[in-house]
């Protein structure tokens, strides 16, 4: 083969690759940009710099009424245990390997920026607060994930594909709320005494495998069949948790948020959480 022909083939091959790759790369990038600008315009229309955009379709959210949890000791633990039971969350019995979807922590840890006030009500910093994934409107974990194994659905729920996750834990570094857990060891295994890490397996929900990240899924599997999240159901009597569609002005949660002052975790991170707290 003479050198001219070889050069031609080289150039032709390179152009073909470029021709295929460049437009698709641009498309992917532009798609991302389109979402961003749409968000910006909507925010502007809603009259705000950074104001939450009113959107069509469902966006699930939750109000956590801490006062009601204080009135009902043991209720928070009930919420935690029912969630971890139905979702086959393993218990390794140590902090290092710990996996948790929903848990109780003190006010100063859940709201670290709000706990350094000069004077504040007595006992506030140690007030127990229920905490879980915030299902952010602008989730940093989804931005960081290199495989789209974690994703935001149209209804606002940030979900996980356990079969796609490569276990790089970038999402765990990215989450500003420490809501994510990693399977450091096989959750389907047993401890030294032969006790399984998943005490009573729920056959209706998948167990996970070693080496993937997991977190609260807002009970998307229950929502799909018309049920409310398990923790909300467990707290139904006291109405300590209000769950519903933030985009529906007539929903119970919208009514509560219209009339009650609530706070959110780390609003300065720009994540727009779907969780609201009444302290």
């Amino acid at each position: 083969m003479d050198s001219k022909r070889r050069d031609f083939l080289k150039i032709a091959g390179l152009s073909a690759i470029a021709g295929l790759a460049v437009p698709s790369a641009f498309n992917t990038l532009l798609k991302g940009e389109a979402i961003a600008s749409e968000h910006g315009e909507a925010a502007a229309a809603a009259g705000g710099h950074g104001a939450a955009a009113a959107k069509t379709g469902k966006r699930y959210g939750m109000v956590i009424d801490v006062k009601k949890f204080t009135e009902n000791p043991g209720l928070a633990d009930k919420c935690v245990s029912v969630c971890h039971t139905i979702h086959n969350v393993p218990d390794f019995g140590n902090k290092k390997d710990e996996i948790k979807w929903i848990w109780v922590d003190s006010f100063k840890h859940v709201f670290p920026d709000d706990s350094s006030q000069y004077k504040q009500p007595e006992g506030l910093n140690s007030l127990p607060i229920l905490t879980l994934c915030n299902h952010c409107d602008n989730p940093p974990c989804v931005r960081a994930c290199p495989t789209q194994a974690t994703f935001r659905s149209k209804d606002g729920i940030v979900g996980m594909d356990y079969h796609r996750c490569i276990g790089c834990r970038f999402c765990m570094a990215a989450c500003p709320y420490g809501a994510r857990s990693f399977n450091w060891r096989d959750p389907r295994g047993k401890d030294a005494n032969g006790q399984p890490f998943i005490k009573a397996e729920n056959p209706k929900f998948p167990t996970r495998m070693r080496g993937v990240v997991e977190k609260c899924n807002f009970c998307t599997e229950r929502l799909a069949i018309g049920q409310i999240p398990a923790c909300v159901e467990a707290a139904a009597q006291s109405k300590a948790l209000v769950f519903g569609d933030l985009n529906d002005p007539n929903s119970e949660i919208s009514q509560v948020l219209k009339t009650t002052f609530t706070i959110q975790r780390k609003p300065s991170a720009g994540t727009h959480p779907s969780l609201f707290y009444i302290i």
Partner: protein
Amino acid sequence: MIEKALKGSTGYWLWMLFLLSIMGVGGLCYVQQFNYGLGITGMSRDVTWGIYISQFTFLVGVAAGGLMLVLPYYLHNYKAFGRIVILGEFMAIAAIAMCLMFIIADLGQPMRAMNVLLHPTPHSMLFWDMIVLNGYLFLNILCGWVVLQSEYKGIKYPKWIKPFIYLSIPWAISIHTVTAFLYCGLPGRHFWLTAILAPRFLASAFAAGPALLMVIAMILKRTTKFDVGREAQDKLVTIIGYAALLNFFFLGTEFFVAYYSQIPGHMHTLDYLYWGLGHGDEVFNNLVPFMRASVIMGLAGIGLIFVSRAKQSDGLLVISCLLIFFSFWIDKGLGLVLGGFVPNMLDQVTEYYPSVQELGITAAIWATGFFILSILYKVAISVKLENEA
């Protein structure tokens, strides 16, 4: 050309055997990790990245450091680097190979690594990191090998390689910039959330990479007839010295911003790394001795490296380069990644200690890197010496 790596002195073979034995032991550790899971490491729910990712971060810098030789030689036609530029390119190959191994060692599901390609995700910085690292590996293999092969044949390198060499220059910047972007784009991690991170990464890279190269060049000078030359040596001192100074200047700006603004989130990690972080009744300070040693070694190294040039002392040069290299290894290969996790997102503190298996795997990956490096350098130096003979 590769056959040059198969002929060597007893010393060469003993060195390779030594590396192979570390690789073997580390390989066994990896089998354990593969079967048990990453729980075998010291990482936890709070400190989710450990020594693997911190080594990865540091080694990206070592790879990018090759730029400090390629740029003067090819772009500015600085002839004195003629003998050493190939060492820079080959060092980049070994360093990137280590980076990729550290990433794989850190994955919970290494068999799924290809998912990054199967589901390309441009909004993830890890996706771009994969592209720039593999691209840089490819460019260095191509440029290094083609240029050396031409030298082997006694001809000038072909013209078509030039665009690839020019491309490798901005590409070297990109690998460390994107690696910094892995960290500095995360809301909530104040220690990492700083625009100076990428520039600081580059400054430390341009010191640590050439410093390691200089140490190896001095060893080669003693053990073989290969001498990079006095002029190249002196020029590298300037590069290493000023890059190291820039790194400390950038570090100083971090201190100013944190402690003058008095914003707690900005101060916490620096407290933890350099003074000890008081938290409740406890003080957490397991990295303090390392970080302080890093500052002392780095500053001493900078001073000594200029003295070594004034005195034309190779011994002093090696010591100062080692000081700078280990200073930046601690700074980036330890403090930067581990510090970012303290305190955690809920203002709690968990300290991290690597496990024995984790250290074994880490040592094995370093040994593999040096194994690759030794083969490449053996070939390069044999060709160079043969040509001159």
